[in-house]
């Protein structure tokens, strides 16, 4: 039994938050660890707020929802305002600087990255922001290996847009490397 890690992915409807959550969970399974993934569901899923939860490790029949996340991805100001304060002390927040201002939160480590703007400028497709975010998150946190996340992407996105999704993943990774070296 591995130690329980709680990850909250949040943003607005249409940003592909749920798919990012599913892909992340899929990657975890490829590394032989247990995982629970869930999402906010229903009218919320169209427009408005969107949230996916991924919990790694813990025992089989543990509480399937997040108490206080260890890792937060926020891709909208609303999501950041709502969830950043719930981060566990010492937790990590990855914020999309395209939409989220630099917060004054203390006690957590914040990564303020131009996720959506990179998807727009480099790929011409804001839809790919979720993959950029995933690439950055995986690199920063190291919760799954690069191969696992790529395999999960291959298994879960349509063939026609696979290459673009993989490039977006790489871009996120680069973004994280660049940020860390600053």
């Amino acid at each position, binding site marked *: 039994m591995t130690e329980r890690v709680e990850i909250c992915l949040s943003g607005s409807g249409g940003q592909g938050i749920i798919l990012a959550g599913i892909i992340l969970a899929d990657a975890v*399974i490829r590394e032989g660890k247990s995982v*629970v*993934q869930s999402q906010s*569901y229903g009218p919320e899923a169209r427009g408005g707020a969107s949230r996916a939860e991924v919990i790694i490790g813990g025992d089989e*029949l543990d*509480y*399937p929802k997040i108490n206080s996340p260890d890792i937060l991805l926020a891709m909208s100001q609303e999501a950041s305002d709502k969830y950043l304060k719930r981060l566990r002390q010492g937790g990590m927040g990855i914020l999309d600087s395209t939409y989220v201002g630099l917060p004054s939160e203390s006690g957590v480590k914040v990564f303020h990255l131009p996720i959506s703007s990179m998807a727009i400028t480099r790929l011409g497709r804001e839809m790919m922001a979720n993959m950029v975010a995933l690439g950055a998150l995986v690199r920063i946190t190291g919760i799954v290996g690069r191969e696992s996340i790529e395999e999960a992407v291959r298994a879960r996105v349509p063939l026609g847009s696979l290459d673009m999704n993989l490039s977006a993943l790489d871009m996120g990774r680069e973004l994280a490397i660049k940020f860390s070296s600053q």
Partner: protein
Amino acid sequence: MASVMQMARLMQGNEAVAEAAIAAGVNFYAGYPITPSTEIAEFMARKLPLTGGVFIQMEDEISSMAAIIGASLTGAKAITATSGPGFSLMQENIGYAVMAEVPCVIINVMRLGPSTGMPTAPGQGDVMQARWGTHGDHPVIALCPSSVTESYELTVRAVNLAERFRTPVILLLDEVVAHLRERIILPAQEDIKLINRVKPAGNDSSYLPYRPIDNGIPPMSDIGGGYRHNVTGLVHDERGIPSNDPGVAGALISRLMTKVADYTGEIYMSDGYLLEDAEIAVVAYGAVARSARRAVKEARQDQIAAGLWRPVSLWPFPGKEIEELSRRVRCIIVAEMNSGQMAGEVERHAGGRCPVVSLAKVNGELIAPGEIHRRIREVYTGA
């Protein structure tokens, strides 16, 4: 195709139910779309035509239930899936399946009710509807999983129990379990034990469609299988012919009850966690059992001897275990996403030997571990 090693997969609860149904030999699905169960219908719509099975989207839940009964009468293994409002509509025909002894499985993904309620929010308010929803006295088998893996296992079991006992079996998921994605390792098909209904021996001239063999359950002949007979929801004799004879009625209803009641040992399912030395027992099922498990763990860190008892077969209810528990714990807390439906049942079996506290919550949210933990502490310090 036998694969040597089954891969771990990420799968949603509803998807696991549908996968399991196919593995259990289900070849007929009729249903009507309703949140939060639709993934099951969508999966079956994709899969069943590939294997020569039938998927049909009916005009409502009443006809869905009717269609699976019709299909089962021809020998098919038939299921439907729905949620609260649809489950209410199915009740009359569920009673028909009980009376006419037609195997079938109804999956009810519980959302917050009453009425349209909160379609995307979890609830456990259908526990008593599953037990008493259709009119008249009748046996009920209802199973309640807490995880994706268990959703798979219990779906196979539900199909098997329906075939074994010639009665409708209800699978009660809550929205949390139905929509969770978890790691699951599917069993190899050849490792899944399937039960098929007992059929009459060929050319048995003494066969009567409702004459039980020694286990109280009559062998079942398919429509078109050579044993023409009448099927009816009216009280009927062993030939299936309607009867107004009180003797026939009494014997029939009594047999319908005992054919399940005599085998509860086979049906009961439950599990315990840290119960051996527990002074306070939490009773919870479905997704709430997972919150309770976490709460029990946390209470143990506070040096409170708490334990969890989780019924998996809600009906028939393994009340004997509560009876036993009530003799050795100081208090039982029943946590559930309804107004205390199972708390009453637990209280009945506890028989006053220990207090039963109801932690009932109906607001469309899964009860959090902290809420249960707090109640454990309150009971512990107050007890």
